[in-house]
C-alpha cells in the first residue's frame, strides 16, 4: 500500500470500427476456386489489412489535424484496446474537450479514408460502421488488469490506485474496462449502421457543446428516434444520435429525403443536439462526464458527485488497509511473547473450536437445500427431504462418535479382539454403545 494514490477522475473515449459485410465476403471469397490462385483466401488478406491499416489511418488522421495553439504534444491519439472478430475498439483517456474533438474528428476521417480505400479496391459489400461512447473512471466504471502469464503485474495493490489507471491509459490492451457505461456502449453500438457513427447520449452531449467550431465544424449529427436496448436504461427507449459519415453524396441526399418523408425529427444543428441530450440526461438522471476545456485550462474541476463519494470511500478503505498492514507486519516481526512463551491455548478455546469442527463436518451446504426447494414446490416433499437430511446428519454424527470411541482403545486391543471385532454401526438416532 505504501505510496498508493487515489485514482484521479478520468474520462475515457471508446471508438469502435467494424468491417461490415465481412461474413458474406468471407463466404464468397473463401471458396476453393479462390484458394487456387492464392495460399490465403482473399478475406484473410482483407482482415489482416484492416487490423494493420485502420489503426494507421486513424493515427495519421489525428496527427494531420490542426491542433489548437496551447496543444500539449504529449497528448496521445486513441490506441487499440481490443479486437473482437471483425471489430477493432480503440480507447483513449481524454485530456480535455479539444482532445475529444480531435479524436472523434480523426476517427470520422479515418472511416472516410479507409472506406474510400475499400471502394477503390472494388470489394463489393464491404463497408465500415462505427460507434463511440465515453465512460468515467474509476467510478462508476472500473479498470481491471487482464491476467498475464508470467508477468510481474501480479504485484497489483490491495486497492486499485492511480498507478493502475495510468498503466491502463498508456497500454489499454493489457486491461479490461467494466461497468454500466461500457455495457451500454456495446449494446447501443449494435444499432449502428454503415456510413454512420453512433454516439452514446453522454458523448453526443459533450461533442455538441462545441460542435460548431473546428475541428468539428462541418460534422453532421443525425437523429433517428429512440430504440430499446436490452440492459440499457432498464429497456426504456434510448435516443439514437449519430454522426453522418456517408461517403456517397447521392445516398446522403436520398437519406435526407427519407427522413423528411418519414417525419423523423432532424437534429442537425449542434445546439439542438446539445439541448436535447442534456434534457434527456436530466430526465434520466444521468451524469454528464466532466472534461476541462483545453490542455492548459486551469479552472478547478467540477467533479461529479459520485466521484466525490468514491474518493471518500477509497480514502477510508485505504486507511483501513494501511492500518491492517501495519499491524500484520508488526505482529509477524515481533516475537510477541512478552514473557508468555509457554502460555498455551486455553481449554475453553479448544472446546469451542472442536464444536465448530463437528458442526462444519456435518453442515449441509445451504445452497443445496435452496436448489432442492427450487426443484420441488410441493411442501410435503420438501418437509420429507428436510427430515431425511436431519436424520442422515444424526446418523453421521452417531457414526463419527462411534468410530472416535472405537479408535481410542485400539492401541491396547489384542489381536484376537481385533480379529473378532465386527463393526456394528449404530442405527438411526440410537446412542452407540461405547464398549463396541
Amino acid at each position: 500500500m505504501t505510496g498508493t494514490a487515489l485514482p484521479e477522475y478520468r474520462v475515457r473515449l471508446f471508438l469502435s470500427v467494424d468491417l461490415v459485410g465481412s461474413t458474406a465476403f468471407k463466404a464468397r471469397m473463401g471458396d476453393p476456386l479462390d484458394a487456387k490462385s492464392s495460399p490465403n483466401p482473399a478475406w484473410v488478406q482483407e482482415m489482416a489489412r484492416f487490423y494493420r491499416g485502420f489503426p494507421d489511418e486513424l493515427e495519421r488522421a489525428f496527427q494531420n489535424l490542426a491542433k489548437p495553439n496551447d496543444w500539449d504534444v504529449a497528448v496521445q491519439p486513441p490506441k487499440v484496446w481490443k479486437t473482437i472478430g471483425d471489430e477493432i475498439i480503440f480507447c483513449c483517456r481524454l485530456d480535455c474537450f479539444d482532445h475529444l474533438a480531435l479524436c472523434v474528428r480523426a476517427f470520422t476521417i479515418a472511416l472516410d479514408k479507409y472506406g474510400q480505400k475499400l471502394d477503390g479496391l472494388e470489394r463489393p459489400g464491404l463497408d465500415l460502421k462505427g460507434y463511440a461512447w465515453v465512460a468515467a473512471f474509476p467510478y462508476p466504471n472500473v479498470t481491471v488488469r487482464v491476467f498475464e502469464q508470467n508477468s510481474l503485474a501480479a504485484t497489483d495493490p490491495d486497492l486499485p490506485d492511480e498507478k493502475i489507471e495510468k498503466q491502463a491509459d498508456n497500454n489499454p490492451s493489457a486491461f479490461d474496462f467494466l461497468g454500466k457505461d461500457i455495457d451500454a456502449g456495446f449494446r447501443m453500438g449494435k444499432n449502428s449502421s454503415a456510413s454512420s457513427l453512433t454516439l452514446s447520449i453522454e458523448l453526443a452531449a459533450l461533442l455538441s457543446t462545441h460542435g460548431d467550431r473546428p475541428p468539428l465544424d462541418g460534422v453532421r449529427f443525425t437523429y433517428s428516434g429512440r430504440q430499446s436496448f436490452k440492459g440499457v436504461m432498464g429497456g426504456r427507449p434510448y435516443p439514437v444520435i449519430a454522426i453522418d459519415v456517408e461517403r456517397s453524396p447521392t445516398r446522403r441526399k436520398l437519406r435526407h429525403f427519407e427522413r423528411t418523408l418519414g417525419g423523423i425529427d432532424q437534429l442537425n444543428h449542434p445546439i439542438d443536439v446539445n439541448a436535447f441530450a442534456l434534457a434527456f440526461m436530466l430526465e434520466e438522471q444521468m451524469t454528464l462526464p466532466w472534461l476541462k476545456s483545453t490542455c492548459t485550462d486551469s479552472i478547478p474541476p467540477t467533479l461529479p458527485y459520485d466521484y466525490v463519494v468514491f474518493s471518500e470511500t477509497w480514502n477510508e478503505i485505504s486507511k483501513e488497509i494501511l492500518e491492517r498492514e501495519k499491524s500484520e507486519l508488526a505482529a509477524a516481526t515481533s516475537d510477541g511473547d512478552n514473557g508468555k512463551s509457554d502460555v498455551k491455548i486455553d481449554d475453553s478455546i479448544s472446546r469451542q473450536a472442536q464444536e465448530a469442527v463437528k458442526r462444519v463436518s456435518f453442515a449441509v451446504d445451504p445452497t443445496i437445500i435452496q436448489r432442492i426447494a427450487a426443484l420441488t414446490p410441493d411442501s410435503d416433499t420438501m418437509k420429507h427431504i428436510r427430515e431425511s437430511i436431519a436424520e442422515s446428519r444424526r446418523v453421521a454424527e452417531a457414526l463419527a462418535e462411534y468410530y472416535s470411541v472405537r479408535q481410542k482403545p485400539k492401541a491396547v486391543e489384542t489381536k484376537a479382539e481385533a480379529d473378532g471385532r465386527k463393526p456394528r454401526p449404530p442405527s438411526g438416532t440410537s446412542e452407540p454403545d461405547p464398549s463396541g
Partner: protein
Amino acid sequence: MLEWSLFVANGQSYPKPINAAKHAINDFAERLAAQFSFAPGDPIEPLVRRLGGHVVVKNPVAFTGQKPESIIVRSASDFTIFVPGMTSIERDRFTIAHELGHLFLHFPAFSQANPGVDMVATRWVDESDKDQQRAEWEANWFAAGFIMPSSAFKAVYGETGGDVRALAVRFGVSQSAAEIRAKTFGLV
C-alpha cells in the same frame, strides 16, 4: 445499529487478548485449518457459511469519524464479517481469516464474561491501547497460520525456489503477505 455503536463507544464489546504464545496460536490455527479440511488456496467464504457466518461487502463511507466494525459475533455459530468493497481477493481472504481468529481465539472468553452480548471487533484499533493491539496481533498470527500453514509453506518455498509470486498464487495471498511469512520462517 445504534446498539453496536454504543458497545463500540463503551469499549465493552471489544475482543480481549488471550495472551497465549505466538507459536501456540499459530499451531492452533494450523491444526484447526487441517480439521476443517481447509487446504492452501481453498476459498474461505464457503467455510464461513458452514460455520454459520456471513461475509458482507460494505463500504465504510457511512462510518467516517469512527472505527467501523469488521466482525460482529452474536454466537459461536452466528456472526457477520464485513469486508470493504474494491479490495483484492487476496486482501479479503487474509481479512476474513483474521476475523475468524477473533471468533476462535477471543469469543470463548468473551461469551463467558459477557453472556448475551455481541462481540464487535473494529477494522483497526488505537495504537495506545495495548490490550486491543495484542488482540489484533493474535488474530494476525491466527490468520497467517490458518492460510499459510508452516509445513506446506516451506514445501512450496522449496519447490519453487522461493518464488514469491508462485507462493502468493498457491496460498491465495498477496505477495507482501507471502514475503512476510517467508521472513517469519527465516527463509529469506
